[in-house]
C-alpha cells in the first residue's frame, strides 16, 4: 500500500546521478587491494588459526608481506610461492622466509608461474565449494521452516549484548522463544577500529561481545537448535563494518549468518576510517555477501541520530541511492539490500506520525524488491521508560502499516543500558499485538495526493536530488570531503587504515576475487 508521490523522472535522474558518482570510486577500487582483503583470501585458503598471544596468522602473514612491500602481487601468490619453496613447512614460517628475502626465492619460469597460479586457483575453488555447501545448509534449514510472523510482517529484530557469548546465547534463545526473527549480537565498543578479528570464544566485552568466528559458530548452533524446536527460522546478524569488513563477511558466510550490517560510507563518516580503505573493503565484503546470499543492512539511520531527523531526511535518501549503486556494482541483487532508515523525528513536534509515514513509504517504494531495515527511535529516548515504550509502539505501527522488511525493535530502556531480558519481552509482546491489530491497516489507507504526506515526500526527494547533483559534480570522494553526508568532512588521506591500502601490481593475483567476480558486468 505504501504510496509514493515523487515524480518518476526525478527518481530515474537521482539514480543516474548516484551511479555517475560511484563509477569513479569503482575504478579506484578495481586498481587496489587492502590488508583486510588479502587476509580474507588467506582465511579462505585455510589460514584461520592464531599465533602466540592470539594474533591471527592471517594478520602475521599479511603484515610481513606488506612490510616487505610485495603485497601488490596478492597474498595468495606468496602463499603459493612460499609453500613451493618450502614444501611441508609451517605456512607462517614459509611466508616469513619468502617475505624476508623475496629476491632469494628461486626464480620461476613462465610455465611454473602459470602452474603455481593454477594450483592456487584449484585450492581456492575447493575452498569455495566447501563454503558453498555450508551456505546451502543454511538455506535448506530456512526453507524447511516458517519465516517471520506472517506474510508481509516485518521480521522482528532484537539485540543481545552481554559481552559474554554464553550469556548472549541464553538471551537470544529466550528472545527467539518470544517471537524474535533476527538476533543481532552487538559488538564490543570500538571493535570496528581493530585491524584484526579476535580469535576464539570470548566472555569479556565492553557494551557488546567481540565478533569472532567461534562466537558466530556458537550462536548459530544455538539458534539452529532453537529454530528447529520452534519450527520457525531465527536469523543471525553481525557487523561487517570497520577495518575488517571482508574478513567478517567471509566468517559470517562460513558460519552461516543470514545478515550483516554493511554500509559503503558508514565507517568513513562515523568511525573516521580512511575512505580509500572503506571503499575497497566494502566492495570485497559485498561480493562475498552476494555470493553467500547474505542480506546487508545499510546504516542510514545514523545520519538522523546525529543530525536533526526532519532536516536531514534527504541525506538518508541520497545515501541509500549511493549504497544501492555500490551494492549493484558488487553484484548484489535488490533482494539482498536492506536499506536502513529510522523513526527519529523529535516527538515534541506535531504531525510527526505523518512525516514518519511519508518517509517510511517513500523508502519502501523507492526500493520495492528490497527488505527495508527500519530502526527505532534512539536520539530522543528518555529515562521515562513508560513514555519511551509508547514512543516505540508508534514506530511499530508505522513499520507494519508501511510493510517495512526488518524492524529493529525499540527498547524502552534505550537511553539507559543494553537491553535487559525483560525489555525484550515487553517489546516483543507489544509488537506482536501491533502487527496483529494493524495487519491490514496499510491496505485500507490512501493518502491525499496533495496532503502533508505527499508534500513531505516531494520536499525530501527534491533535496536529495539536489544533494546528488552536487555529489555527482564533485565526485564521491571530494563530496565527502565537503561534508555532503552526515555533516562530517573526511579526506581521502585522512582517517584510520590508509596504510593498509595497496595499489595492485600488473600481476596481482586473487583467486577468490576471480571466482566472486565471475559473470561480472
Amino acid at each position, binding site marked *: 500500500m505504501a504510496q509514493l508521490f515523487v515524480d518518476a523522472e526525478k527518481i530515474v535522474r537521482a539514480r543516474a546521478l548516484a551511479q555517475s558518482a560511484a563509477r569513479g570510486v569503482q575504478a579506484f577500487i578495481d586498481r587496489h587491494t587492502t590488508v583486510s582483503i588479502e587476509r580474507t583470501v588467506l582465511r579462505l585458503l585455510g589460514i584461520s588459526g592464531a599465533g602466540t598471544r592470539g594474533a591471527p596468522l592471517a594478520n602475521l602473514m599479511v603484515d610481513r608481506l606488506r612490510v616487505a612491500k610485495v603485497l601488490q602481487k596478492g597474498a595468495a601468490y606468496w602463499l603459493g610461492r612460499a609453500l613451493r619453496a618450502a614444501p611441508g613447512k609451517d605456512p607462517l614460517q614459509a611466508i616469513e622466509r619468502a617475505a624476508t628475502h623475496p629476491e632469494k626465492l628461486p626464480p620461476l619460469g613462465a610455465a611454473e608461474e602459470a602452474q603455481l597460479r593454477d594450483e592456487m586457483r584449484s585450492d581456492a575453488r575447493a575452498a569455495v565449494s566447501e563454503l558453498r555447501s555450508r551456505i546451502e545448509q543454511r538455506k535448506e534449514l530456512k526453507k524447511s521452516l516458517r519465516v517471520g510472523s506472517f506474510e508481509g510482517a516485518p521480521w522482528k529484530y532484537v539485540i543481545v549484548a552481554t*559481552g559474554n557469548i554464553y550469556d548472549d546465547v541464553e538471551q537470544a*534463545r*529466550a*528472545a527467539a*522463544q*518470544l517471537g524474535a526473527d533476527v538476533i543481532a549480537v552487538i559488538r564490543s*565498543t*570500538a571493535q570496528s*577500529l581493530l585491524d584484526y578479528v579476535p580469535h576464539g570464544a570470548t566472555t569479556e566485552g*565492553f*557494551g557488546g561481545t567481540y565478533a569472532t568466528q567461534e562466537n558466530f559458530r556458537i550462536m548459530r548452533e544455538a539458534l539452529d537448535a532453537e529454530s528447529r524446536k520452534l519450527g520457525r527460522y531465527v536469523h543471525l546478524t553481525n557487523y561487517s563494518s570497520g577495518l575488517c569488513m571482508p574478513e567478517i563477511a567471509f566468517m559470517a558466510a562460513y558460519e552461516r549468518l543470514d545478515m550483516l550490517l554493511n554500509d559503503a560510507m558508514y565507517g568513513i563518516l*562515523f*568511525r*573516521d576510517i580512511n575512505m580509500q580503505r572503506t571503499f575497497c573493503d566494502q566492495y570485497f565484503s559485498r561480493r562475498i555477501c552476494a555470493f553467500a546470499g547474505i542480506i546487508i543492512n545499510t546504516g542510514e539511520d545514523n545520519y538522523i*541520530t*546525529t543530525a*536533526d531527523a526532519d532536516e536531514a531526511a534527504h541525506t538518508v535518501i541520497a545515501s541509500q541511492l549511493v549504497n544501492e549503486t555500490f551494492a549493484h556494482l558488487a553484484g548484489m541483487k535488490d533482494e539482498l539490500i536492506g536499506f536502513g532508515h529510522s523513526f527519529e523525528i523529535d516527538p*515534541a513536534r506535531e504531525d510527526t506520525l505523518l512525516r514518519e509515514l511519508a518517509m517510511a513509504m517513500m523508502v519502501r517504494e523507492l526500493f520495492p524488491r528490497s527488505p527495508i531495515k527500519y530502526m527505532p527511535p534512539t*536520539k530522543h529516548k*528518555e*529515562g521515562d521508560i513508560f513514555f519511551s515504550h509508547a514512543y516505540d509502539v508508534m514506530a511499530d505501527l508505522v513499520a507494519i502499516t508501511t510493510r517495512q522488511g526488518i524492524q529493529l525493535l525499540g527498547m524502552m530502556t534505550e*537511553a*539507559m543500558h*543494553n537491553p*535487559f*531480558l*525483560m525489555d525484550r*519481552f*515487553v517489546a516483543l*509482546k507489544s509488537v506482536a499485538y501491533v502487527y496483529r491489530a494493524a495487519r491490514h491497516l496499510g491496505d485500507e489507507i490512501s493518502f491525499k495526493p496533495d496532503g502533508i504526506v505527499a508534500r513531505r515526500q516531494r520536499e525530501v526527494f527534491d533535496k536529495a536530488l539536489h544533494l546528488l547533483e552536487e555529489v555527482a559534480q564533485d565526485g564521491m570522494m571530494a563530496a565527502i570531503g565537503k561534508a555532503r553526508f552526515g555533516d562530517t568532512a573526511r579526506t581521502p588521506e585522512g582517517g584510520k587504515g590508509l596504510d593498509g591500502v595497496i595499489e595492485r601490481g600488473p600481476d596481482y593475483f586473487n583467486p577468490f576475487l576471480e571466482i566472486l567476480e565471475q559473470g561480472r558486468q
Partner: protein
Amino acid sequence: MTKHLIRPYGDRKDDGVIQLSFVLPVPAGDKAKEAAAAVAKKLGLSHVLVSSMEKAGDDYSFFVVYGRTHMQLDYAAIEVPAVVHPKHPFDELNEVVKRDIGRRIVVVGACIGTDSHTTGIDAIMNMKGYAGDYGLERYPMFRAINMGSQVEPEKLVARAKAENADAILVSKVVTQRDVHKEDARALVDAAKEQGIFEKTIFLFGGPRVDHQTALELGFDAGFGPGTKPSDVANYIYYRMLEKRGEKS
C-alpha cells in the same frame, strides 16, 4: 531544622506504594509467582501484589509487582550538591562576559576514549544547540572547539593547552564497567601532567553523569540529561569569576 517526613505516594498520602518489575530465571508457574512475592517481601514491602507474571522465555518469568514500604524519610535532611547560579539570557551573557572577562572564553570539547556518541557534545557545542537553546558556537563571546568523537584524553588536553582554553568539556555516553570514570581520570591525569589542571575548568556531561560523580573525579562540575547549552555557558562564566576570586 524541622523534619519533613515523606513516603512514596500511590493513591493516598503516606500509603508507601511502590511498583517493581523484574525477571526471575525460572519457568512461569505458581511457584515462580510465589517466589516473586517473596522477593518483594524480602525487600521489606507489605501488601504485596504480583499483578502480572509472564513467560519471558522457557526458563524465565517476568513480573510486575506492587507493594507498600513502611520506611519514611526526612526530606529536609536530603542534600544535593548542585550547580547553582543565576542565569543570564543569551545577549546578556555575551555582554557580561565582555565586561567582566574582557575577551572571548575558549572552550574545547570532545567525546573521549572509544566513545563515538557525539549527540551530547554536539547539542552543547554546535551552532544549532538543543531544544531551541543555541549552542556555544553561536555565542559571539565564546570560542567553541568541538573535537568530535573518540579523542584520546592526552590529545584533548594538548589541544586545550595549545588554544589556551578556559574550559574543557567532556561527554561520555558509554559507561559500561565504569569506563567513563576511567577515561575521566585519565583526562585529569593528563591535564596535571601537561600543567593545565589548575587553570582550566573541567566539565563532565552525559546521560549517566551527575554533579556529585564529576566532583569525585576531580572535575569542576557535572551535567546530566536535559542540560542546555546556556546552562553550560553560564556556568563557565561564573566559575571563571570564582577562580579569579580564589587566586586573589
